[in-house]
């Protein structure tokens, strides 16, 4: 039995754990990675965001700092390399552990914070089952965690922040990025990232997509094509690129299986990139004892994931009767910071999405 079980040890889960534990709650943090940190441990680039939320610091350093903080608390039990596979009535979760997944444990918790992050999207194109087609997350894991290069000549599909950042990391690893293609007519990621890759000689083709790849045992060539407003190929615009690897960075979807299982009310919100659980501004779902935070609540940023984690951690702990001397003030401060972070034109979509997923009326 634990007070608060937190599923997922990325920035959202770690922040929630630290906040709840600082108020005295007994926390169990479960993550399926070899190490805690979620997406952060793959990020060797410096983060954006406000100074308060670690801007200008590399993701991996942020993770190290938070993991260090976690160790300071005796009331946090962190379990890595373990997957939460199921949710049962009365806040019982099942945890699979061990290399072969042969250890099954049950854990009962008074509150659950789901911070499972996101899953990468795939893309249909001819021969997309040839070896050499990777998701951006897999490429990052290979390079930044295991020091293995995925290929020598890469085509990146997607010019959102992930596609841009992973392209830059590939260039830093000495790998040639032949081009970046983006189906939308404009670059979706931060333009400063795009400019820094472009000035290293990587062309960015907007309104273009990957049509097919050729090769017998592995990829030898890729064909890209311009597309029109309806995303149809424009004949005669094809270009052949000599690449051995395709890296797909075509978006993420919230990893919300456990929330479905738990019977939380779910909604498809395109601005948040998929199905998300409805939540109030304390990050509580329609199930009184289940909270969410981070990318599972809508694909966003590490900085917002951390704030949502803190809000969920604070409110879950307080709902269990743990005392926070200046609760009102702290709660207000975190929510104001989150609002401020989203107050830019690029976050318009997120704000619309959150409106759609928000339960109003201050149920407590």
């Amino acid at each position, binding site marked *: 039995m634990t007070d608060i079980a937190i599923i997922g040890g990325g920035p959202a889960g770690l922040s929630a754990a630290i906040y709840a534990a600082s108020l005295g709650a007994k926390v169990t943090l479960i993550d399926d990675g070899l190490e805690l940190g979620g997406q952060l441990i793959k990020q060797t680039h410096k983060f954006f965001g406000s100074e308060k939320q670690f801007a200008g610091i590399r993701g991996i350093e942020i993770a190290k700092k938070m993991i260090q903080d976690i160790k300071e608390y005796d009331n946090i039990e962190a379990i890595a390399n373990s997957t939460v596979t199921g949710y049962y009535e009365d806040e019982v979760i099942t945890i699979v552990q061990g290399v072969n997944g042969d250890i099954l444990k049950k854990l009962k918790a008074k509150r659950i914070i789901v911070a499972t992050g996101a899953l990468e999207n795939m893309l249909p194109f001819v021969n997309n089952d040839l070896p050499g087609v990777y998701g951006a997350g897999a490429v990052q894991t290979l390079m930044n965690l295991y020091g293995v290069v995925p290929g020598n000549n890469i085509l990146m599909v997607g010019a959102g922040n992930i596609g841009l950042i992973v392209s830059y990391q590939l260039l830093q690893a000495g790998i040639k990025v032949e081009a970046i293609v983006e189906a939308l007519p404009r670059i979706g990621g931060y333009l400063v990232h795009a400019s820094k890759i*472009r000035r290293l000689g990587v062309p960015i083709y907007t309104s273009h997509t990957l049509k097919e790849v050729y090769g017998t045992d592995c990829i030898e060539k890729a064909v890209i094509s311009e597309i029109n407003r309806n995303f149809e190929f424009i004949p005669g615009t094809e270009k052949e690129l000599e690449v051995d690897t395709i890296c797909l960075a075509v978006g993420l979807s919230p990893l919300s299986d456990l929330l479905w299982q738990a019977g939380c009310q779910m909604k498809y919100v395109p601005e948040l990139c998929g199905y998300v659980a409805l939540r109030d501004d304390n990050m509580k779902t329609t199930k009184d004892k289940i909270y969410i935070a981070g990318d599972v609540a809508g694909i966003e940023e590490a900085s917002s994931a951390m704030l949502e984690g803190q809000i969920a951690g604070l409110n879950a702990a307080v709902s269990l009767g743990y005392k926070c001397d200046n609760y009102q003030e702290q709660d207000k401060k975190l929510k104001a910071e989150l609002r401020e972070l989203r107050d830019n034109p690029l976050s318009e979509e997120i704000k619309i999405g959150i409106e759609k997923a928000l339960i109003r009326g201050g149920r407590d």
Partner: protein
Amino acid sequence: MLERTGIPTDDDLEKVIPDKKRLVQGPVVIIECFQKIPCDPCAISCKLGAIKPFRDINDLPQVDFDKCTGCGICISSCPGLAIFVIDMNYLDEKSLIKLPHEILPLPEKGEDVYALDRAGSMLGKVKVIKVLKIKNKTNIISIEVPKSMVMKVRSIKVEDKNNER
């Protein structure tokens, strides 16, 4: 255009380049950051207040060029690698550019490296004047370029001696 290619246009650049009078007075910062994003380390890094304090984390950096000494401290604070320092009249014929560099190998002082423009095209070889290693790994490289190239060069390519046998 910037949104389609990643290359800022002359119109974009006009907004961030100091006037001629300031340029000839000595080193000065140029911040090529054109999009409102939630990011503010540059403003906090400048201890001289030359980058005006942000009212909102999404503000665009605004520089008071008269306060800027061209020290270059802000260069490595920027996660977008968007900050450069230009010393127009470094020598009679040459200007100096300080730029951020995160790709290994690092060049050595005195080495000739390729100068790249904003599209990554090679503009010829230029000499490295100084290599400043920074703890956060965004190193600052000073290069000497012909005056005509000072508003064009924004990156360098270093030959990897290990890969040339």
